[in-house]
């Protein structure tokens, strides 16, 4: 437990290279924007 720093995120993104890439996730532009792009708001489908 740290006193000065609290990490809000999970493990480094590099780790996802080991098991990611299934491609079953939603296409980001289909959700609500259609004029911009955000990817970090999506959850992995696995």
């Amino acid at each position, binding site marked *: 437990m740290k006193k000065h720093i609290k*990490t*809000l995120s*999970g493990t480094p993104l*590099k780790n996802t290279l080991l098991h990611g890439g299934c*491609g079953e*996730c*939603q296409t980001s532009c289909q959700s*609500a924007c259609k004029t911009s792009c*955000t*990817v970090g708001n999506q959850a992995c489908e696995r």
Partner: protein
Amino acid sequence: MLDKSCVHTYSQGGLHFAVDGNSGAVHLLDDAALELINLIISERGIENRADLTEFLRQRPRWQEVGAEVLELVDQGLLFSEDLTEVPPRPETVVKALCLNVAHDCNLRCSYCFASTGDFKGERELMPFEVAQAAVEFLLRASKHRRQLEIDFFGGEPLLNWDVVRRTVEYAQERAREHGKVFRFTITTNGLGLTPAISDFINKHMYNVVLSLDGRRKVNDRVRQTAGQRGSVYDVVVPKYRELVAGRKGRSYYVRGTFTALNLDFAQDVAHIHDLGFAQISMEPVVTSEEQDWALREEHLPRILEEYERLAELYLERQQEGRPFNFFHFNVELKKGPCLYKRLSGCGAGYEYLAVTPQGELYPCHQFVGNEDFRLGSVWDGIVHEELPLRFKDAHVLNSPTCRSCWAKYYCSGGCPKNNWEKAGNFLGVDELSCQLEKKRLECAFYIQAGSQPYSDQE
């Protein structure tokens, strides 16, 4: 080496943050941690872990917080190095189509990127045979991919409702035969909604996007009927209420566009929420710079402030027990997408394509009508084979601006069409969009921290 180029610190609402762009890590800091991390960033003599250890050894006052920083460095969560090479991509397939079922609209919104529905071409509707061929194309092109998406778009898709309904039924039947699943979305201006249509949407559509810009005067100033008769707001709000009442927990968004004419758009989000809609998206307008309503550099400070106001409103209403969801403040910090996804972004041009009423394929709805970007057709598939590769390669690691940006793995490089319009190529960026996206991300992290106050940490 410690990579400082992608570490971003900021403060908002009395909280301090550090974002490590290369690892995607987001840290909530106390005053001492913020001071030390900023010091490390500015100190030229600290280039690697040994330099940092020595720096801390000579300064006992930083010992405690320094140990925490070193721990994060060792975990690859702070000052982490970026990928040295682009990972080999898994095979990509087309998995989503935007069906422009109507190149026509019963509204004449002044800011419409689709030239009030006709995409600068003929006003026309997609025949069922074209939609059917699009479904077959998607089933073929998606190969082993199970989950497929179709968005009914336009123009106004309800002008061609019978084709929408028949396409959903056809696709569902074909998906069963192929062991696949379709997720349908429809984006509508609401004018043509009837109880029967809303019922069908609620039964069959995974998501529905309902256009409304907020307050009546804001909405009706830019969203007008073709004959400019009556208030669009007054017609669609009751229809949206009825539809949303039947969603039963399924996804929907009331989606607005803000322009230079309503830079106080947080009030429009609040208004939409007050109308009873809790799933809200509010997008910056995409238009050419000479228009009165275009967002320009000079508006930036005001827009950034407004996003902060919106973040406070978000937290206030959450604390009052009447939360709403704002699309661009959503961020998935623990179970977010993999790096492959973050390197593919929206997938326009190779995972996601748009289909015109005549069955032509384009990289996405934004490119429709631009002949240079016509990829092929739903019958012939992609014949312009070089073009998808250009889209595929336009990822953040190939863009010099994105590569050194802390937000790169959250925004994935932004909208290719916006980049192409503003920078003239896919590897440049639309600087204004970047500034807005970075602010929205800052607000999103702030909200995540604000939802779990620092004093309550374990």
